[in-house]
């Protein structure tokens, strides 16, 4: 056991995967010599050499496209997109190629690529360092979409993603890299070393994809969250005193419907929260699927709390960011409803 930040946990996962499997290669912009702008790959080039961890030209389509070719050869590339906001140039390669390779070639060619990217806001990064594009990937058959919320999971889920035989979009909530930020931007953030989920096993282990985690048991209402919103939910539950059951989805696609269904059928109420813009966000799918499976157990409308349908602002960061106060209002609303 060791105390790790989310960055250290991710670095450690890379290290163990590369040590264990010679076919794992890691590359991206500023990923090699420097070790990544968030330092998630620091030390790997020194340890495994420049042909297994290297810098790349600034071309996201090239990063993924080359990665797909490497998969066709038999390697397992782990590619870093510097910010999720910059994944769009690679969108065609991800949607038209990586996601469909196995299907269209009837299994002759597969694509076990992992595409990592820091996601989410809360760092005054403005519209191009704050986005949460997960719903643009959950609509794509053939992809898996993962969002860890703490060092323990970040390591286990990343190792699972690297082992996975299919393409995985791995979204890292950058606001959680150094501590469990709960949306109270005016308060100091407890560092991971003082949080139980900062306790990380040094050994190789897997946190299975497709399995959610219940962060807080509760009877009154089910809160579906992932990434930074998990801690926003914990804060809101505590501050409203509402006995919420908080589910950290961890994997959005494939979704752990079982855990969700059991919880909502128990509580009869459901609130969904994410940072991404509301319309057609992943919350829409969650609301639809909960409604389809728990309709006769619902005592109040399912409520979505999400980013506003605007570009992510700079000065108005905290008016945009869905914090404990907004979630608290929603919780009270569903309890009344």
């Amino acid at each position, binding site marked *: 056991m060791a105390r790790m930040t989310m960055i250290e946990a991710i670095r450690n996962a890379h290290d163990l995967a590369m040590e264990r499997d010679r076919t794992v290669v890691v590359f991206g912009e500023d990923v090699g010599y420097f070790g990544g702008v968030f330092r998630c790959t620091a030390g790997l080039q020194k340890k495994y050499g420049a042909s297994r961890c290297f810098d790349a030209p600034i071309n996201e389509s090239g990063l993924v496209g080359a990665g797909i070719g490497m998969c066709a050869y*038999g390697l397992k590339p782990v590619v870093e997109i510097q910010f999720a906001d910059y994944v769009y140039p690679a969108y065609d390669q991800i949607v038209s190629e990586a996601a469909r*390779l196995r*299907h269209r070639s009837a299994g*002759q*060619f597969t694509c076990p690529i992992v595409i990592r990217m820091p996601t989410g806001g809360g760092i005054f990064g403005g519209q191009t360092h704050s986005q949460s594009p997960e719903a643009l990937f959950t609509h794509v058959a053939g992809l898996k979409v993962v969002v860890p919320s703490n060092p323990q999971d970040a390591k286990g889920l990343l190792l699972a993603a690297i082992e996975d035989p299919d393409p995985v979009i791995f979204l890292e909530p950058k606001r959680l890299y150094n501590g469990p930020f709960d949306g109270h931007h005016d308060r100091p953030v407890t560092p991971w070393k003082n949080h139980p989920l900062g306790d990380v096993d040094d050994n190789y282990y897997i946190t299975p994809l497709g399995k959610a985690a219940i962060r807080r048991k509760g009877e009154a209402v089910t809160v579906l969250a992932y990434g930074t919103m998990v801690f926003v939910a914990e804060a809101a539950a505590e501050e409203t005193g509402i006995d919420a059951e908080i589910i950290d989805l961890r994997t959005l696609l494939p979704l752990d419907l079982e855990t969700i269904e059991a919880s909502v059928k128990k509580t009869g109420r459901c609130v969904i929260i994410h940072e991404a813009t509301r319309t057609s966000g992943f919350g829409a799918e969650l609301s639809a699927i909960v409604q389809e499976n728990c309709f006769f157990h619902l005592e109040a409308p399912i409520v979505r709390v999400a980013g506003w349908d605007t570009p992510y602002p700079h000065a108005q960061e905290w008016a945009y960011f869905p914090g404990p106060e907004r979630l608290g209002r929603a919780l009270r609303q569903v309890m009344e409803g």
Partner: protein
Amino acid sequence: MDTPKPLSLHVPEPGCRPGDAPAFSDFVIPKAGAVRRPSVDEAPEDMRDMAFSVVRVLNSAGEAVGPWSGLLTEEDLRRGLEHVLTLRIFDERMLKAQRQGKTSFYMQHLGEEAVSCAFRMALEDGDMNFPTYRQAGLLIAGGYPLTSMMNQIYSNSADPLKGRQLPVMYSARDHGFFTISGNLGTQFIQAVGWAMASAISGDTRISAAWIGDGSTSENDFHAALVFASTYKAPVILNIVNNQWAISTFQGMARGNAVTFAARGHGFGIPAIRVDGNDYLAVHAVAKWAAERARSGLGPTLIEHVTYRAGGHSTSDDPSAYRSRNEEQAWPLGDPVTRLKTHLITLGAWSEERHIQSIAEITDRVRLAQREAEAIGTLISGTHPSPRAMFDDVYAEMPPHLIRQRQEGGY
């Protein structure tokens, strides 16, 4: 500078449209044998001339001449002729089958057969091609079963791709043939990634990327050149310039550049233009590029100059946008006729044997077609089950797909 006159938009137009007299006057073609053969390790800066001429081996008399000749035995050449003939006859039969409604769609190679057939002979087994829909010669010259190709075209129950893909979007890993994408250009950078992987793994295999003249405009063409140049990837970057992109002539993609091959110069990638209708020239240039790649000298860009004599696909009627006689005016002739003439000149072939060979090949193709149609065509026989639609989306079928499959009753 005094007040300038109004600007105007320059929109490139081809030399001839329907009704016009076809003209390739601006297309300068050197004599066969005239272009030098640089040593593979010559500095890219010293090889720039290769992008502005055309490597040709077969002269008008049908003789193989110059520094690029002499690589193929008569046996090789007869096999080559068999390949290009097979591809042509295969295309004829499948075009007919599509017209008969036996499948939804088809794309032929008429006039371009030499490019993929000759190129394949310059590769080693284990090398990987990232083709477009117009390089079926790689499969035929590689010995891939005609019946398997037809099963894919017919989407029947023996289709290796389980009825999932549009006709001709083949995939044949064991034959060094990457799954064809309907999205133009994506495979070009993937081929570079495959080559990088081979280098990372200390392997000796190389890859070949394929793209059409029109598709060089796609952004992933750039990604491929950037990565290939930066990492000196062991890849051959092939541009098949068949003069047309559906209704759009090659000048729309080439712009103000003199040739497509010149694109390589911005990246320090040796670029070479070859007569794509000259089987021997294509093979020789491919060998040269493969040697560069395998010796760790990095990528080579090849522009294959050829002509799309047929329609873009069975959905296309070229008479709407180009002159009917353009094909006759095309200065590089027909690849099959030229190879045949060469063999006859060598005394290694005859009109009689040619007719006989065509008959034999036609029988073989017919036989394969009968086999395939016995299994099924798009409108008859047996097909992959709807169930197959849900397989291979993931290695292991996730719960939501199992639910959907059940909901569909499959």
